[in-house]
């Protein structure tokens, strides 16, 4: 056995995600992914009114609140057979698109770019060269020499003041860092600009959702956005155009900055197109519905098995039995009472904590399976499904990223390279660019439908006696999210959420099959076991998101390193 490395966020109570790897001969030989926090909201929901569930489920998380609201109302609507007005569908879709764009931008620039970008090196850059490089890749107007000089001056003043501020948390000078000073400077400039554009995307969520995080405008049966073009307090032309202006600005940033940046980073770290594939069974669900029933969608869903795009099987309705009948969760290695493998409608959530034991139980996260197989979810799954299905927008942006990256790397890159650590970043940018078009399309559909005089936003319904079962899915920023509800006489009898990070971060199942995080780490290089930057790169590429904990601040103690290496 080689060295055992544990990466564990020790500064938060309860903790989130703990990764253990064994390193042998400079490569990861085995790995375990452990969720360190119990989520008990499902238990709280039992006995409550199904119309209230979405308010509670949004509190699963402080980052992806919207997604749990959407999946929850869809699950209850599915159980009761409620079709929502088309205005409600479009309003939800614009929120979905805006939330996804905000989330993808933040993830790339603010949470993972520093795994690839060496900020200190940007001090040595020639701003004129950085600007010339950027302008050769993109027509973005904020890549001028002056802009680059201003960012570099700001960085210099921080360093002169004896600190690097927010950038002190990177592994600077690590042997695995290899961008030129100019590319590093460009990345820092775009890091700052990205702060502005993620905020603009999130503003759209707030305008339609009344606030964000935790939107307030949903209802089982539709939305609560009153539409009245003659009323200041309702959704009117002024608000619609406020939304459109924001979406236009965000689309510019995504298409002209985010997409070329990802292509450039991908090209300069081309060897990372060969690491981190892991589980190559992919699952995505369709989203951005175009009708009241949910039978036509602007984003495709389906499965791909064993990395072979020809195995594509589409999921194309909110009622899809292929999805409904194939999802199970295993608790063989999770801290719950029992040892079962069950369909979400039949599950329970009874905690039974027994210390971290890699051979037995070692995570709060259950292990979801599709037809008994582990599946990778997330933007890569949706992009591959879209690519295989010939989705025109996804294909356009995927080919654009692959061509740009190929030109820089002087290599021919096909969609096969997407099964990798960097492929997940590329796919997220491709999906984000796809959303930048779809957000505006659905805004246009909403405006046109309102223009026809249709102001309907809600479909009334009643709860029948007896039992109904429903499921609602949503392709969230981190992938397939599904909520499962059993209603008995108008009350919730059972509720389960199978969330994207559960699919990806889940532990082994009863057959010992690794989850996607675990499988993706095996074979990763690790140059320096004390600074396992490469492990962070692959884990970050999934955009991990395990639910919130209270933050305790430790000002006096030196924060212990969260990386523990055991010989």
């Amino acid at each position, binding site marked *: 056995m080689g060295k055992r490395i544990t990466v564990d*966020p020790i500064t*938060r109570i309860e903790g989130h995600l703990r990764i253990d790897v064994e390193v042998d001969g400079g490569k990861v030989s085995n790995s375990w992914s452990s969720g360190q926090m119990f989520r008990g909201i499902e238990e709280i929901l039992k006995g409550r009114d199904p119309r209230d569930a979405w308010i509670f489920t949004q509190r699963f998380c402080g980052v992806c609140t919207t997604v749990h609201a959407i999946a929850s109302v869809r699950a209850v609507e599915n159980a009761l057979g409620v079709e929502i007005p088309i205005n409600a569908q479009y309003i939800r879709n614009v929120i979905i698109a805006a939330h996804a764009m905000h989330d993808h931008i933040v993830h790339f620039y603010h949470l993972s770019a520093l795994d690839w970008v060496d900020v200190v090196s940007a001090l040595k850059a020639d701003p004129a060269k950085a600007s010339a490089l950027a302008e050769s890749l993109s027509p973005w107007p904020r890549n001028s020499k002056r802009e680059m000089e201003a960012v570099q001056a700001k960085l210099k003043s921080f360093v002169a003041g004896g600190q690097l501020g*927010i950038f002190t948390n990177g592994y600077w000078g690590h042997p695995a860092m290899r961008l030129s000073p100019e590319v590093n400077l460009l990345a820092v400039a775009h890091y700052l600009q990205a*702060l502005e554009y993620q905020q603009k995307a999130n503003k759209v969520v707030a305008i339609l959702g009344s606030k964000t995080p935790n939107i307030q405008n949903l209802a089982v049966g539709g939305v609560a956005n009153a539409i009245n073009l003659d009323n200041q307090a309702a959704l009117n032309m002024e608000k619609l155009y406020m939304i459109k202006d924001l979406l236009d600005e965000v689309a510019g940033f995504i298409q002209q900055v985010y997409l070329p940046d990802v292509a450039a980073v991908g090209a300069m770290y081309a060897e990372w197109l060969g690491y981190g594939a892991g589980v190559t069974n992919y699952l995505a669900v369709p989203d951005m519905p175009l009708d009241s029933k949910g039978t036509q969608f602007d984003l495709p869903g389906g499965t791909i098995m064993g990395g072979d795009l020809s195995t594509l099987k589409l999921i194309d309705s909110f009622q899809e039995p292929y999805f409904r009948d194939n999802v199970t969760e295993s608790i063989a290695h999770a801290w719950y009472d029992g040892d079962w493998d069950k369909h979400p409608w039949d599950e329970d959530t009874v905690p039974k904590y027994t210390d971290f034991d890699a051979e037995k139980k070692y995570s709060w996260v259950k292990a979801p399976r599709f037809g008994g197989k582990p599946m990778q979810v997330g933007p890569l799954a949706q992009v591959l499904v879209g690519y295989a299905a010939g989705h025109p927008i996804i294909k356009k942006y995927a080919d654009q990223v692959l061509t740009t990256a190929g030109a820089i790397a002087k290599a021919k890159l096909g969609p096969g390279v997407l099964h990798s650590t960097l492929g997940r970043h590329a796919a997220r940018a491709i999906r984000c660019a796809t959303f930048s078009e779809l957000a505006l399309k659905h805004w246009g559909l909403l405006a046109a439908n309102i223009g026809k005089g249709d102001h309907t936003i809600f479909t009334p319904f009643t709860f029948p006696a007896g039992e109904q079962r429903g499921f609602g899915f949503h392709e969230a920023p981190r992938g397939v999210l599904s909520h499962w509800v059993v209603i008995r006489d108008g009350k919730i009898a059972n509720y389960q959420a199978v969330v994207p990070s559960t699919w990806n971060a889940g532990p082994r199942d009863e057959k010992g099959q690794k989850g996607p995080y675990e499988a993706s780490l095996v074979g990763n290089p690790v140059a320096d076991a004390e600074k396992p930057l490469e492990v962070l790169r692959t884990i970050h590429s999934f955009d*991990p998101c395990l639910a919130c904990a209270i933050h305790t*601040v*430790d000002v006096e103690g*030196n924060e212990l390193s969260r990386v523990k290496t055991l010989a």
Partner: protein
Amino acid sequence: MTSAGTPGELRLYRRDEIVRTPPQPRLSPHDPGLKEALLTTEFAGTGPREVLLVGVIPGEVRTSVGLSPAVRSAVPAAVAEVVRELDRLGVPARVRAVPLPLDPWWERA
């Protein structure tokens, strides 16, 4: 607030003390905390000019609703520190003739 001391004791920190130790690599969007928020806004040029962190040493830290008795009884003293700081900054708080009772939502029936 992690600090040597008895639960319920106050700890006050200024900006430089909060950012003295560098932030650590993070795994998830939930990880960034106060320090990261402060440093990010500073780099973006929108950081606050004045920072005072009024903290309380916790009685217990676990999954539950509400405050431990030690922290609950420290609330008036923490509020007084905030009022003192506002005074110092030249924006004195107006004090109610009859203070309202402490009424956290999670303690309501």
